[in-house]
């Protein structure tokens, strides 16, 4: 750790301005800091749209942008090279936006050898403008908002006396505050209770640069190894054989087009990028020596890496079989359940459901999400529990598209899904289980308590925004200003005298103590039933009650 710390005098120098070498070191530090947090950023990704994983995409884009850049005294030159590689290696939506940010940054630094606080603020402003240019309808509450507000914070701090570090500090604070505000701008984020993942990635990049300026440590090691494994599976299919050969060729006035076409003819899967000074080569060949001998006639070779792909694939294959994601099937019939809320997801997992697809009221999983979950299971016979009336149709669609035998048990609420799973017989076949689940679903009642978001007349009832509303098996039966009044009415209609167990699933916005108070209240009024409290963690619904 002390190795990362600069001496006091270097830190003072770094506070006032950077040359190109220092700018590159700061970006490398940012890349390390981001890659260390990539998994945490991935976890924020709530959009069911498959943007891969934001953290991984941004991290690979930035590490790809800096890894082949040679230090240069000029900031403008370094920024230009970083921009070039970011464009070549941008991955995923967030990676493309990041490459545009770096593009704007490079435009502002062009021709400047040193960067002071003033220039940093200008470069961030240009980065924001360039990022916004490449989209027709910018969505606020995303990475775009964060880069804009970061640049505004940097500009506000960039007075004539402001040091580089002071402006960078303001930028980091601006970025962090902007990330925290993203849920206010984007409903999808608010519903999921997270901040924007791309915005968080940007904030981490600025944090990494600031850590470099202050001489603070950047502990990472494992993350880098992980990303090389990802890269391998990404570009290598099962049919590749021979030696995967990677190297960087450096020289003067290299005939890039000639070298590229001649090298590409020597092997398979060639990815050759670069310019007249620097060419990066990735190619699969049977005799790696031939490629190296050809290239060395043009200049100096660095970063030579030759891997035997047959062995590498075996090693990778062994690794993946140890991954926890590959759940051992517990029965011949697989079960896929849709759930929203950390509590419900954990509950379904604890009941050995083979796959849990996240989604619910506000963010329905797509047909494709469900189909992928079905196809991924080892079993040939699968039952799907949609657990929401809006998802039943997508589940049926997925069932009809699947190559497997699939039955959808049209559960409309999460508790229906829970009892359906409980009635599952591990020895029985597909049809028998589907029928048993369907029957179990008919025997429970579900009450859902939420808040009306707008005025409406539903099922003949007048509801105004802000009122608490109660649904019984999906039908609105009660609306009132007081939550307790709604709960009373629901309990009455659930005919608790004829029931044995009542489960209170409390939502994201409710404390355990409140749920326990409600449970006590139910127990006091209906002494014959057994009352259980479960963490559901569901968004929007304060409570979901089930009676069986």
């Amino acid at each position, binding site marked *: 750790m002390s190795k990362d710390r600069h001496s006091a005098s270097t830190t003072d120098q770094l506070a006032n301005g950077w040359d190109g070498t220092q700018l590159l070191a700061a970006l490398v530090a940012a890349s390390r800091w981001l890659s260390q947090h990539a998994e945490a950023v991935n976890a924020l990704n709530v959009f069911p749209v498959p943007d891969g994983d934001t953290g991984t995409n941004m991290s690979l884009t930035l590490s790809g942008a800096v890894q082949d850049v040679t230090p240069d005294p000029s900031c403008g030159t370094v920024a230009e090279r970083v921009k070039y590689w970011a464009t070549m290696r941008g991955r995923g939506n967030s990676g493309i936006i990041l490459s545009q940010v770096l593009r704007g940054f490079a435009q502002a630094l062009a021709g400047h050898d040193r960067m002071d606080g003033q220039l940093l603020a200008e470069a961030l402003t240009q980065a924001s403008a360039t990022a916004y240019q490449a989209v*027709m309808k910018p969505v606020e509450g995303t990475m775009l908002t964060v880069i804009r507000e970061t640049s505004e914070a940097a500009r506000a701090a960039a007075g004539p006396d402001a040091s580089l570090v002071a402006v960078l500090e303001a930028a980091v604070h601006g970025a962090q505050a902007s990330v925290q505000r993203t849920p206010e701008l984007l409903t999808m984020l608010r519903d999921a209770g997270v901040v924007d993942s791309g915005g968080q990635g940007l904030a981490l990049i600025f944090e990494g640069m600031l850590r470099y300026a202050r001489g603070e440590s950047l502990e990472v090691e494992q993350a880098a190894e992980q990303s090389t494994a990802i890269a391998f599976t990404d570009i290598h299919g099962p049919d590749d054989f021979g030696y995967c050969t990677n190297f960087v060729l450096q020289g003067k006035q290299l005939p890039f087009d000639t070298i590229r076409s001649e090298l590409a003819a020597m092997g398979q899967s060639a990815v050759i990028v670069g310019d007249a000074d620097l060419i990066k080569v990735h190619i699969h060949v049977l005799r790696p020596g031939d490629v190296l001998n050809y290239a060395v006639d043009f200049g100096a070779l660095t970063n030579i890496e030759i891997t035997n792909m047959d062995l590498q694939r075996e090693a990778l294959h062994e690794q993946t079989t140890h991954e926890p994601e590959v759940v051992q099937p517990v029965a011949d019939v697989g079960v896929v359940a849709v759930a929203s809320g950390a509590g419900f997801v954990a509950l379904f997992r604890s009941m050995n459901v083979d796959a849990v697809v996240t989604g619910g009221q506000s963010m329905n999983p797509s047909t494709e999400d469900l189909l992928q979950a079905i196809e991924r299971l080892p079993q040939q016979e699968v039952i799907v529990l949609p657990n929401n009336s809006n998802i039943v149709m997508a589940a049926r669609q997925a069932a009809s598209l699947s190559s497997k035998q699939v039955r959808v048990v049209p559960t409309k609420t999460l508790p229906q899904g829970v009892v359906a799973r409980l009635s599952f017989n591990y020895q029985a076949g597909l049809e028998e289980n589907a029928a048993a689940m369907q029957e179990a679903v008919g025997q429970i009642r579900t009450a859902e308590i939420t808040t009306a978001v707008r005025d409406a007349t539903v099922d003949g009832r007048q509801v105004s925004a802000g009122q608490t509303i109660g649904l019984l098996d999906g039908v609105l039966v009660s609306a009132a200003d007081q939550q307790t009044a709604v709960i009373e009415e629901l309990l009455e209609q659930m005919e608790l005298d004829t029931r044995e167990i009542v489960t209170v699933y409390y939502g994201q916005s409710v404390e355990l103590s409140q749920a326990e108070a409600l449970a006590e209240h139910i127990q006091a009024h209906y002494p014959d039933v057994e009352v259980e409290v479960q963490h559901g963690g569901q968004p929007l619904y304060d409570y979901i009650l089930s009676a069986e």
Partner: protein
Amino acid sequence: MSEQPNQRLMPMGKIEVAPRAIATIAAQAVGQSYGVVGMAPSSLAQGVAMVLRQADAHKGVAVRISDTTITIDLYVILEYGTRLAEVARNVQENVRYAVEQAIGMPVAQVNVRIQGLRSNDAVVK
């Protein structure tokens, strides 16, 4: 079932989604895709790529419905300097997701046809 992919038989009757409606949904999703700066008319045979106004964006989308599949062709103009293959891939994912979400039916193919690039390296001061 003999129904077309944009039609489905429901207990209360048939639901059919017009290709034009699918085109509007797709155009909306393209508009929010990063790296796309405009759409070009799908009917334009000549070389010049004209940029459509926002209200006409659906004209840059061709929806083909065959017996079994929905295919969507998008005629787009991308930002110069972005990695085009990656931007196109993101567009495909966004459009497929948005259309499937809205109409609840699967989309077989989304083809991105890049009609032009716009360079916008204006420097702000």
